C-alpha cells in the first residue's frame, strides 16, 4: 500500500520536473531567439556594402547630423531593417497559423490564395488602370489579398458547418491555380504587365521608406494581437474538430479569428514586399523543433524565427552579393539547405 503510494508520488514528481524542464527549455529558446533578433537587427543596421561603426550608428539614431553615414543609417538601413522585422514576425506567425488551421505541415501562408490574389490585383492595376507607383501597388496588392482569402474561406465553408482543414486546403489550391492562370494570361499579352510582374514577384525589402512601413504596420499589429489571442483555442483545435467542440471550444470563432489574422498578416507582408516564398513555411518548422507542438509557445517563437531569418538573409545578401539577390531568393538559398539538413538528420515534429 505505502509502496504503491510512494511510487505514485515519485512518478508524479518526475512528471512535474519533466514539465518544469520543458517550460524552462521553452523559456530559454524564446530568450535566445529574442537575443538573436536584437543582434541581427544591429547587424542589419551596421553591415552592408559600407560597414558603419556602432558608435556612429548610435549617434545617427540619437543625434542625427547631415553626414553621409547618418543618412545611410536613417534613410536606408533603418527602414529596411524595420520592414524586415515586421514582415518576418508577420510571416512567421501566419505560417504557424495556417499549418494549424489546415492541419497540413505543407501549408504556407500563401495557401489561402493571398499571394496570387495580390499578384493578380497588382498586374490588373498596372495593365487596366495604368498604376505605376509602389504605393499604388501596396493598396491593390492588399485588397487583392483580402478578396482572394475571403473567397477561399467562403468556398471552404459552403454547404457544411464551417470550413474543415481539407476543404480549406483544396479551395486555396484551386483558387490559387485559377488566379495563376489568369495572371499568366494577362502578362503574356502585355509587356508592361510582364515587366512589373517579374520584378514585383521576387519579393524584396530594399528601397522601401517609412511610408510603406506606416501603411502596413496597423494591419500587422492587429493581426499579431488576434493571432496571439487565438493560440489557446488552436491547441484544442489540434486535437481535431470534434474533440475541440467536446472540450467546449467555439471552433467556428477560433477559425474565423485565425483566418482573419492570417489574411491581415500575409496581405500586409505581400503588399509591402511582394511574395516572399518559403519563409512562412520554414519559420514554424524550425521553431517547432525548440518548442514542440504547444501553440502558445510555438507562435511567438515562430514570429521571432521568421524575423531573424529574413534580416539575416538581407544582411548576407548585402555583404556577400552586394545586394544583387533579393531577400526572398537568399532565404531559399540559405534556409532550404538548413531545413533539408535538419529534416534529414533529426526528423521533424509531426503536426
Amino acid at each position: 500500500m505505502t509502496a504503491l503510494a510512494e511510487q505514485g508520488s515519485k512518478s508524479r514528481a518526475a512528471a512535474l520536473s519533466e514539465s518544469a524542464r520543458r517550460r524552462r527549455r521553452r523559456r530559454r529558446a524564446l530568450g535566445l531567439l529574442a537575443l538573436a533578433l536584437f543582434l541581427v537587427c544591429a547587424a542589419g543596421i551596421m553591415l552592408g556594402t559600407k560597414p558603419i561603426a556602432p558608435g556612429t550608428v548610435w549617434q545617427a539614431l540619437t543625434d542625427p547630423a547631415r553626414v553621409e553615414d547618418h543618412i545611410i543609417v536613417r534613410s536606408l538601413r533603418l527602414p529596411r531593417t524595420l520592414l524586415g522585422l515586421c514582415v518576418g514576425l508577420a510571416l512567421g506567425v501566419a505560417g504557424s497559423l495556417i499549418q494549424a488551421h489546415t492541419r497540413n505541415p505543407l501549408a504556407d501562408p500563401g495557401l489561402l490564395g493571398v499571394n496570387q490574389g495580390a499578384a493578380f490585383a497588382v498586374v490588373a492595376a498596372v495593365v487596366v488602370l495604368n498604376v505605376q507607383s509602389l504605393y499604388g501597388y501596396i493598396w491593390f496588392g492588399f485588397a487583392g489579398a483580402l478578396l482572394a482569402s475571403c473567397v477561399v474561406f467562403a468556398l471552404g465553408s459552403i454547404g457544411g458547418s464551417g470550413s474543415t482543414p481539407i476543404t480549406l486546403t483544396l479551395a486555396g489550391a484551386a483558387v490559387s491555380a485559377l488566379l495563376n492562370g489568369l495572371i499568366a494570361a494577362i502578362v503574356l499579352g502585355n509587356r508592361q504587365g510582364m515587366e512589373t510582374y517579374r520584378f514585383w514577384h521576387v519579393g524584396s525589402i530594399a528601397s522601401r521608406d517609412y511610408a510603406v512601413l506606416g501603411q502596413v504596420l496597423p494591419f500587422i499589429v492587429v493581426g499579431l494581437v488576434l493571432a496571439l489571442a487565438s493560440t489557446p483555442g488552436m491547441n484544442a483545435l489540434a486535437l481535431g474538430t470534434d474533440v475541440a467542440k467536446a472540450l467546449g471550444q467555439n471552433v467556428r470563432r477560433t477559425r474565423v479569428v485565425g483566418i482573419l489574422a492570417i489574411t491581415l498578416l500575409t496581405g500586409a507582408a505581400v503588399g509591402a514586399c511582394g511574395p516572399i516564398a518559403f519563409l512562412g513555411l520554414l519559420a514554424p518548422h524550425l521553431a517547432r523543433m525548440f518548442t514542440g507542438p504547444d501553440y502558445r509557445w510555438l507562435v511567438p517563437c515562430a514570429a521571432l524565427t521568421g524575423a531573424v531569418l529574413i534580416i539575416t538573409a538581407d544582411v548576407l545578401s548585402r555583404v556577400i552579393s552586394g545586394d544583387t539577390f533579393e531577400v526572398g531568393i537568399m532565404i531559399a538559398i540559405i534556409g532550404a539547405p538548413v531545413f533539408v539538413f535538419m529534416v534529414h538528420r533529426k526528423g521533424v515534429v509531426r503536426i
Partner: protein
Amino acid sequence: MSRIALSKSSIPGRRAIASGPVGWSFRLRSLVVPVIAIALLVLMASLNIGLGSSYISVSDVLDTLTGGGDARTQGIIFDLRLPRTLSGILVGGALGLAGAVFQSIARNPLASPDVLGITWGAGVGAVSAIVIGGNLASLGVPLGGLVGGLTAGTLLYLLSWRKGIDGYRMVLIGIGISAVGYNIVYWLLTVGDVDSATRATTWIVGNLSDVGWESVGPVLTALAILVPVTLICSRTLSTLQFGDDTARGLGLRVDASRGILLLLAVLLASVATAAAGPITFVALATPQIALRLVRAAQPPLLSSLVLGALLTVSADFAVRVAPGATDLPVGVLTAILGAPYLIFLFIRNRRKETA
C-alpha cells in the same frame, strides 16, 4: 460449360463477376469513370486533330487514325497534327498518374510534382536555357528541363533516404528543394530581358503549341515503359494506406515497394515536364477530381491518368477555339477549366468530406 454471372457481391458497394471457380469483385464506378473518360478523350482528341487551316471532321479523323482515309488527309494528320494532341495526352496522363502516386504515398492532397521540387528543378534547367540561349534555345529547353527535373528527383531521393523512404520526410525535403528551384526560376526571370521572361513564363505555365515528332517520340517511348510498370507496381499502394506497421504486418516489403513507386513517379513527372513544361494544376487537380468521381478512399491511378489526359487535351482544344485565347499556353486553360470543376465537386460532396 461455365457461365459468366454478374451479381451483387457480399461486399457492400461492389459487384461480383464469376465464372466457375474464378471470380472478381469490383466497384462499378471505378470501371465506369475511366471508360466514360476514355470515350470523351477520344472525342476531344479527334476534335483537336480536326482543327487547323483545313478542317477535318471527327469521323474522318477516326477513320484515318484506324488506317483508312486518303493520302493527303493521312499526311496532314500524321505529320502535322498528331504530335500536338498526342503529346497533350501523354503529358497530361503522365502528370495525372504521377500526382496520384505522390498524393497516395504522402497521404496529402498537396503533394504534387510542384511541391516536391521536380517541376521547379526542371524549371531551373529550362529557364536557364531560355535566358542564356536566347533565340537558339529551342533545342536546349527540353534537354535542360529533363536534366533539371532528374537532378531534383535524384536529390529528393538521396536526401530522403534514411533506412528507407518515409513519405512525410520526403515531402518536407521536396519542399526545401522546390523552394530553391522556385526562387532561382523567378530570379532568372529578372536577369534576362522582357522577351525571354515572356518565353520563360510560357514554358513555366506549360505549352503544347510547338511540339513535333522529334520531341514526342522520346516521350512516347519513355511513357510506354513507365506507365504500365507504374500501374503494375501500384498493387501495393492500397496496403500502404494502412500505415507502415500494419502494411508490414500484412507481409508487404514497405520500403522497397514505396521506393520503387516514388522512383517511377519522379521519372514520369520529369519526362512529362521536360516535354511540355509543368502544365499547371494537372498533377494536383486530376487525382482529386478522380477521387471524387470514383468515390474511392485514395486517388485512383487509372482514372487519374485518363482524366489528366482528358483535361489537358480539352484545355488545348479550348485554347485553340476560344476567342482571344489564341497563342495562350495550354496551362492557363487547364487551371481555368480544372479549378472551378474541382471546387464544384468538393462543394457537392461536402457532407462526405472528413477532416
